[in-house]
């Protein structure tokens, strides 16, 4: 290779890079109308792609749908995407990159992942951005007096594990029958996997249940030794806390291999999607999974989006058969809450038809009141559990629905179930939040 060619090639490469940076830095178009900007910190590649494409796809589809119907009181929605690969380090970069768009600051951030949520959670108050953890993330953020900027609108992991244990108790014929039972908590070895443990241990102690914790190192595709351990332990139930369809389907095929009944295996919301079940084939049949947003196309909003957005060829999903799947419906639920919060914020601050600030959006989100009637009006009645938020109470629906995989689709087996003792979980949350506040010198705001 001659020097001249090296030189020329290097010049070409650096010219391209410079052009890219410059073009990315320039604003694309001047804002002619009122707009509200939403960041999409998506995770479309890697082991968690099924989750990211469905969830963020639905958010973009809903924003498109709102725009096609005249925006939010005339305010058009804009968005910008950044790829996090479900990686905490990249999430921090994306948070900064997405922070501003066309001179407008973002008002909400959604990482769809506990590691990412933890990585940015401490920036929220200072940056005045709402962290809308939709069914994931830091649990004790449900205490709004310590965490004004963080919400858990679709229920959190402590309630979720409590609901699972309630379900087990009901299957066993009552809490008194749980004494002496053994539950294996098999989890991915990350913050997300360990998140339910404090609540789980507390309930187990009260009920006289033995908990065996088995960690699977990420990405969780190797589980053979862990399932051999399950065989030795002979548990009555297994709560599986995995992430990514690879890990989740491997869990079921390994359970089948050691002959562990799938009817005793309960999956976390992040393993409770069609994409997690299909790869396991017949091994998946009978597995229980928890839902904070039910799948299906029977909901009017889902049908409207399919007709309007996908009908116009603007849909975000490459595979349209995924409309109405678990992750897509969950993303839809999350996006509906953003827009409801935006409407609230506009009305509360006398800014109907105008863009709102982070602080205004926060107040609007805190004022969410999703009554069954309101959900019905929005076209998602029955898809998510009704809930309301308040100054101190930042956890939304404290109820989950149990589903079972019948080999082809999920079948709902329970209604929206709350934990048996919600107050006990709430006390745990307040204790944990108080400890955090004390350690970090935060004065909880007055919510009375």
């Amino acid at each position, binding site marked *: 290779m001659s020097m001249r060619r*090296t030189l020329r090639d*290097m010049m070409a490469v650096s010219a391209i890079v410079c052009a*890219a*940076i410059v073009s990315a830095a320039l604003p694309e178009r001047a804002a002619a109308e009122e707009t509200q900007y939403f960041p999409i910190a*998506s995770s479309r590649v890697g082991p968690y792609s099924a989750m990211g494409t469905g969830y963020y796809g639905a958010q973009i589809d809903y924003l498109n749908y709102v725009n096609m119907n005249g925006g939010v009181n005339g305010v058009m929605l804009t968005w910008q995407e950044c790829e996090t690969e479900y990686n905490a380090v990249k999430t921090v970069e994306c948070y900064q990159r997405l922070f501003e768009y066309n001179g407008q600051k973002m008002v909400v951030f959604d990482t769809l992942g506990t590691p990412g949520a933890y990585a940015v959670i401490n920036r929220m108050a200072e940056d005045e951005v709402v962290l809308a953890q939709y069914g994931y993330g830091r649990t004790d953020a449900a205490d709004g007096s310590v965490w004004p900027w963080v919400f858990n609108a679709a229920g959190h992991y402590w309630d979720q594990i409590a609901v699972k244990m309630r379900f087990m108790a009901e299957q066993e014929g009552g809490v008194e029958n749980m004494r002496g039972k053994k539950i294996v908590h098999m989890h991915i070895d990350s913050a997300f996997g*360990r998140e339910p443990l404090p609540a789980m241990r507390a309930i187990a102690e009260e009920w006289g249940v033995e908990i065996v914790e088995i960690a699977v190192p990420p990405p969780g595709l190797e589980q053979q030794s862990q399932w051999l351990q399950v065989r030795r332990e002979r548990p009555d139930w297994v709560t599986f806390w995995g992430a990514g369809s690879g890990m989740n389907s491997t869990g079921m095929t390994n359970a089948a291999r050691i002959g562990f009944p799938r009817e005793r295996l309960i999956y976390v919301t992040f393993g409770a999607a069609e994409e997690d079940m299909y790869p396991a084939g017949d091994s998946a049949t009978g597995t229980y999974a928890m839902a904070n947003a039910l799948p299906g196309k029977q909901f009017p909003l889902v049908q409207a989006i399919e007709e309007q957005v996908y009908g116009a060829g603007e849909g975000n999903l490459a595979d349209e058969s995924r409309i109405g799947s678990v992750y897509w419906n969950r993303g839809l639920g999350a996006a509906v809450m953003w827009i409801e919060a935006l409407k609230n914020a506009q009305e509360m601050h006398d800014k109907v038809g105008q863009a709102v600030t982070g602080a205004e959006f926060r107040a609007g989100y805190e004022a969410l009141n999703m009554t069954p009637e309101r959900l019905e009006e929005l076209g998602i009645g029955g898809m998510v559990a009704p809930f309301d938020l308040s100054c101190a109470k930042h956890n939304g629906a404290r109820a989950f629905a149990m589903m079972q995989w019948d080999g082809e689709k999920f079948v709902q087996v329970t209604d929206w179930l709350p934990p048996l003792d919600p107050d006990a979980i709430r006390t745990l949350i307040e204790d*944990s939040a108080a400890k955090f506040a004390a350690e970090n010198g935060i004065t909880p705001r007055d919510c009375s």
Partner: protein
Amino acid sequence: MHDKPLFMTYSRGDVANFVVLMALAFAVVPLMIETDYWYSSILIPWLCLALAAIGQQFVMGYAGQLALGAAGFMAAGAFACYNIELRIPWMPFPLSLLFSGLIAAAFGVLFGLPSLRVRGIYLMVATLASQFFIIWMIDKFGWFKNYDSSGIITAQDIVIAGRSFTSPMEMYLVVAVVVTVLTILAVNMTRGSVGRNWMAVRDMDIAAESMGISLLRAKLQAFALSAFYCGVAGALFAFTYLKSLEPVAFDIKLSFQILFMVILGGLGTINGAFIGAGFILLFPVVLNTVGNAWFHGMIDATIISAIEQVVFGALIIVFLIYEPLGIAKLWENLKSRLFSRRPVAEAAAAKQEPAG
């Protein structure tokens, strides 16, 4: 300037470079750049990872020991710094940083011991232990995380002499000062007897030993200093970039990235560490920005994300084929082409010289 550079002696070029870089880092950048994005998402992680890459250069580029597991030492440094700050509140941050580096260095010596018996790819496998052992230890014993149930801890604020450094620009300055000091040390070390011993071991260890160089000392020194640099880098990475501590952030993927930085940047060069870190860290960001800015709406977003990874992988292969000695060498050639008055033939002859 054909003479080999020496310890504590600087050519006119060195001084000029130094002055330009310092002016850039401490005057031009803080005055010109106002957006937080550039400080907290580009400059800070770049400098931190470049520091870790210098550590990897010591052991791999200079001492020739194939080691993998830099992220483990970074984790050791980060958690050491957290615990020192937590348990000894009066300790000034620079001292905490120093001690975190020393603790990481102790691990470095421990995991460098196999290098005395095995070499090459086998040593790489042996050093992998550091990666897994350190992360496992932090996860297993709650004390390291102050019994935090979730396993992700908030890093303390950086306070130096009563002044807290919290804004992105202030933190950038802290990182830049630390990186400057350690880089000057690194350049001198590699030019001095320490570096020459390492290179002798790298080029032929039996010859080096017969000339009176203690292999034990040279190798362990390389591992210790490498871990020291990685430890300090890890502490800075956690305290200024992530602002939280989580063992998963220091996984095997990061170790591989640091390895690639060194190989792509140019083995056995200090500036290669900076160039390699820049390439590995920034190129995916550039690709993602370009993908979103230019192709938004044209191609399915999922396919854009996948293409970015393919392009990045292809670029690594292209660079390694075009210039196996790394981007630093490419830069050197470019410089000699543009600035040198030497005839082209001589420059071409210089290119044939092995690295180092």
